[in-house]
Structure formats: C-alpha cells, structure tokens
C-alpha cells in the first residue's frame, strides 16, 4: 500500500535511537498497553506499561507495589527475634539467604559471631537454596520463552533440596532456618550423607538442562543479543548478582567481602561477556555448579562444636547502626539497621536486589519486540515479594 499520508516523518522516534523504517506498513500511531498485573510471564503481580510502535517497544514503565506489606514498618514494631521469620516472606524462593543476611546483620550489630559449625551449616543450606532458586528461575524462564520441558526437570530436582530443608527445619519454603547467633537446629542424623547424595544426583541433571537449551537453536535465537546491558549501565543502575556478572563485571560479595565461612572455600566467579539473556543463562548455570563445589567442600569438613553463640535471651543491640549485605541468588541483599538500644529495631531497611535490578528493565527492552519483554523479565529473575516488600 503506497499511502503518502502515512509519512515516516510523523514518527517521533528520534530521541529513542531507533531506525525509522523506510516504508511504514503499520499504523504509525503509538500504542500504550498494559502487561500485567495479572500475566503469567510477569512472575507475580507486576504491571508493565508498554509504549509500542507496532511490535517494537519504545519505552516501559513498571508499576509495582501490589504485594506491598510494609515489611520495614512491621520490623519497627517487632522485636529482633520476632522479625526473623518475616524476612523469609520477601524473596520466598530464597528464604534461607534472606534469613542469613538478617541474622548476620543483627549479629554484627551486637558484635557477636556465630560458631564455626553454625557457619558451615549456614553455607550448605544457603548454597542449596541458591541452586533451588536458580532451578526455579530456569524452569519458569524457559517456560516463558516456550520451552516446557525444563520446568518439569527443574521442579523435579528442586524437590530434593526442599526435602532436605523440610527434614532440617520442618519447612520447605519459608524456612526460618537460622537464629540470631547461629542455628537453632542441629543437623539431623544422615544430613551429610543426604547432602552428598544430592550432589551426585544433581550434577548430571544440570548437564541435562544444558543439553536441552545451551545449543538449542530456538533458545539461542530467543536469548542471544536480547536484553543487552553494558557493564557501565549495569553499575550505574546498581544492578548486582548474575545480571551484573553476565555483563563482564567479576564481582561477587562472597569473594569481595566474605561473610559466613565463604573465605574458606575454593570457588570461581562465572562471568559473561555480552551482557545478554543468553550470557545470564550461562552464568547462572555455571553458578549452580560452583555452588555444588562449595557444598562439597563444606559438607566434607563441617567442624564439631556448638551451633549457637552466647546471645542473651532478650536481644538488645547497643545504640548504633550497621549495614550488612550478602550475595543472595539475585544480587546484593543488604540490611541497614538502626538500633536505639531497645528490643525493637528503630529502623530496618532492606536493600532488595530484585527491586533495584528491575529498574534496568526499561533500558534492556527498548527497541526489542513485545515477545522479548517476556524473556527479559524472566532473565532479570525478580521475585515480586521482594520488589514490593
């Protein structure tokens, strides 16, 4: 259709760095549509307002807060011990990591240190949780893109991790596994053996996931050069975790500022080069294998000894403030706690990795197609419970 009234000069694309097609075959009006809040590919209640030109994304705006529960306000009205289970409800697929960060932050504020045995148990459970979190990410991300099989594989194998959690502390997801000062529970009889069995069980399974996807042509076409973010942009946007590492920044808090017992283990930091969805996939796959390495070292030399440090029954940190952060599966998870010397935090701020990483969505999807937005939301790996808190 040669229609001179549909002139390309009407289009306002100049400031968005998009090439103007010579022959506009679609209506050149911009279209604004909502994706979500109820949408299977938004991994929860995330609403993304898309500004489209045909299928091309010109810009996005995230509307969040649908799951806001006021966690930080709740913290100010609970004692330090009472607040401990609440942190599990933020990133509920990596509850153990949340608990580790919180307990360590309060311990730092009280100037106590968990015993060596507790630290090893913490590392083992946290790394198991990292694998579980990455498995859940992989299954849902692949499902979003159209590969259904990995979902069944990853959920089948993640079950084994949840069984270990259940046997250890009675809960599968919101575990409340750690206490301020150490761990409440001693490992159950046969814990080491079950963890070792899991390691030999899951290593070939990770190869299996890779067999399905890594060289799969459809997977590569859908992920390579999609959602690219440069290292400079990622740092400026405060992006952390696998997303930052896939852009080539070799930075992991477990190495940079070791906490728990991480300084005692030998592991590598996998990085990518292109900062695209495919690299982020490869980084997370490699991270699962590194987690297996850490768990293997830890489980083979769990020291004997107590699992709780000497902490008073009523936790009353001295007046002061502390920031402590850990490398959660999704990035830097930080707790900034202000104590006024009472039994309740005066102010407790959570620095959620999902919230900060989600801000990079806009820069990553500009110029892509609508279908790629789904891939990019998946690759950032957000949990809305943590974004909204």
């Amino acid at each position, binding site marked *: 259709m040669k229609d001179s009234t549909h002139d390309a000069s009407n289009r306002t694309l100049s400031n968005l760095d998009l090439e103007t097609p010579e022959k506009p075959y679609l209506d050149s009006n911009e279209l604004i549509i909502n994706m979500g809040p109820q949408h299977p590919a938004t991994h929860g209640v995330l609403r993304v307002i898309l500004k489209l030109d045909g299928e091309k994304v010109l810009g996005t705006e995230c509307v*969040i*807060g649908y799951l*806001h529960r*006021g966690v*930080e*306000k*709740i913290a*100010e*009205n609970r004692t330090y011990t009472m607040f401990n289970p609440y942190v599990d409800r933020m990133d509920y697929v990596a509850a153990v990591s949340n608990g580790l960060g919180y307990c360590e932050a309060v311990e*730092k*504020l009280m*100037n106590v240190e968990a015993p060596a045995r507790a630290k090893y148990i913490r590392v083992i459970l946290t790394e198991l949780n990292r694998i579980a979190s990455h498995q859940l990410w992989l299954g849902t991300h692949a499902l979003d893109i159209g590969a259904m099989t990995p979902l069944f594989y990853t959920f089948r194998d993640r079950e084994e991790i949840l069984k270990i959690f259940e046997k250890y502390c009675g809960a599968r997801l919101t575990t409340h596994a750690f206490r301020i000062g150490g761990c409440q529970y001693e490992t159950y009889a046969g814990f080491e053996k079950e963890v070792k069995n899991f390691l030999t069980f899951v290593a070939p399974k990770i190869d299996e996931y890779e067999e399905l996807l890594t060289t799969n042509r459809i997977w590569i076409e859908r992920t390579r050069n999609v959602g690219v973010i440069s290292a400079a*942009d990622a*740092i*400026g*946007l*405060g*992006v952390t975790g696998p997303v930052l590492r896939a852009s080539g*920044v070799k*930075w992991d808090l477990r190495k*940079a*500022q070791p906490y728990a017992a991480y300084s005692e283990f030998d592991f590598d930091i996998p990085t990518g080069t292109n900062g695209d969805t495919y690299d982020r996939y490869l980084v997370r796959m490699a991270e699962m294998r590194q987690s297996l390495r850490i768990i293997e070292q830890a489980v083979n030399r769990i020291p004997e000894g107590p699992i709780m440090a000497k902490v008073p029954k009523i936790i*009353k940190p*001295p*007046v*002061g*403030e*502390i*920031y402590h*952060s850990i490398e959660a599966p999704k990035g*830097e998870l*930080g707790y*900034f706690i*202000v104590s*006024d*010397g*009472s039994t309740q935090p*005066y*102010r407790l*701020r959570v*620095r959620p990795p999902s*919230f*900060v990483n989600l*801000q990079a969505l806009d820069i990553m999807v500009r110029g892509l197609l609508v279908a790629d937005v789904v891939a990019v939301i998946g690759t950032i790996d957000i949990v809305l419970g943590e974004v*909204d*808190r």
Partner: protein
Amino acid sequence: MAEEVKTPVPPPPLEGEKKPAAEERAAPASAEPAKPAAPAKPAGPVPVPWTSPLVEKYKGQYGSGIDAQTYLGQNYFAVDRSLIPNILRLLRDEEQFDYCVDITAVHYPQREKQFDVVWILYSFPRNQRVRVKTQIADGASISSSVSIWATANWLEREVYDMFGIQFDGHPDLKRILLPDGWKGHPLRKDYGILQQDNEWVQINLGIESGQ
C-alpha cells in the same frame, strides 16, 4: 577490605555518640540521650573518628561541614545538607564510588531536623563501602542524585513515598510502592502500624476497611 577490620575500641563513656553531627548542632543533644535506656549496655562499642587520606582531603576542603566516623568497622560521613550534591559527586568522580547501593532515611521526630537521609556507596576498584548521611528538617528538600547514579531514581522515589522527603531535580518524583492517591507516609514514626488511608480503600476497593 579496609572497612571490615574491626577496630578494638576502648569505650569511653560518650553521650549522644550515635549522631556525631549532633554535638555541633546542639539542638538534639537533650533529646538523644533520653531515648536509649541508660543502664542497658554501658560497655557497647562507640564510633571513633575515622582517619584516612580521603577524610583529611575533604575536611581540609569543607571544614566543619563534614564529620567522619567509624562504627564497628564501618565508615560514614555526616555531612551538612548544603554540601550533599558536591560531596556525592566528588565521591563518584574522584574517589571511584561508582555504585550507589542504597538510599534511605530515618525519622527522628523529637529532633529539630527530623530526618536522616543515608546514602550507602560502594567502590568496585577500592572494594570499600562508605555511608554518607545528612540531617534535614521536615518539609525541606534535598538535591536528587539521579544525575550521579541512575539507580537513585527508584530509590529516591521510595524514600519520597515512605517519608515524604522531596528530592530537587528528580525526573519523576512520585509514589512507587503505594498507590498514587494515598495519603500519608508510612515510615514516619507518627504513622501508626495499624493506620491506613481508609478513604482510599473505600473508594478504590469498595470495602469499609482493609484491616
């Protein structure tokens, strides 16, 4: 790793040590010591002055407007509000604090300058963290750091949403977690935990109360 080194500190009894900047401002001195229970922990750690070439440089440049302390091995600057944009920019441009970890605030209703605004910064080349904080009064505004770190955009929106602190020069300062028409800022101390905007709930959700 420099900040992780725990400095063993002989604890001199020091009142109101929590806000080092408070001493020179005098106003909160009476309100501060009343809050912590005096007999609770007399032998707790206290902040000590933080000495480093970085601090010397800024103190030489800005004098009394800037104070530097270390608490439990973590360093922070207490900076006068007017110096904030300069200090933040210098920390990024000259001292390589290229990653803004978090921006948040703390409400002290009994103080004359009610809010502490806190920036948590990290430097990849130095592997070092620093906190910058400043005190501002209720209703006062502070300059936005979106032009310094792009990540400040959402973080400042959240501070605005939760505390009602205005950031000058922010490209799109509006609520982020709460709905647009919500009244009140929940993380202020005078906002009760059971309090909510009933009017909003009635209009938008069609129920009497969300409680």
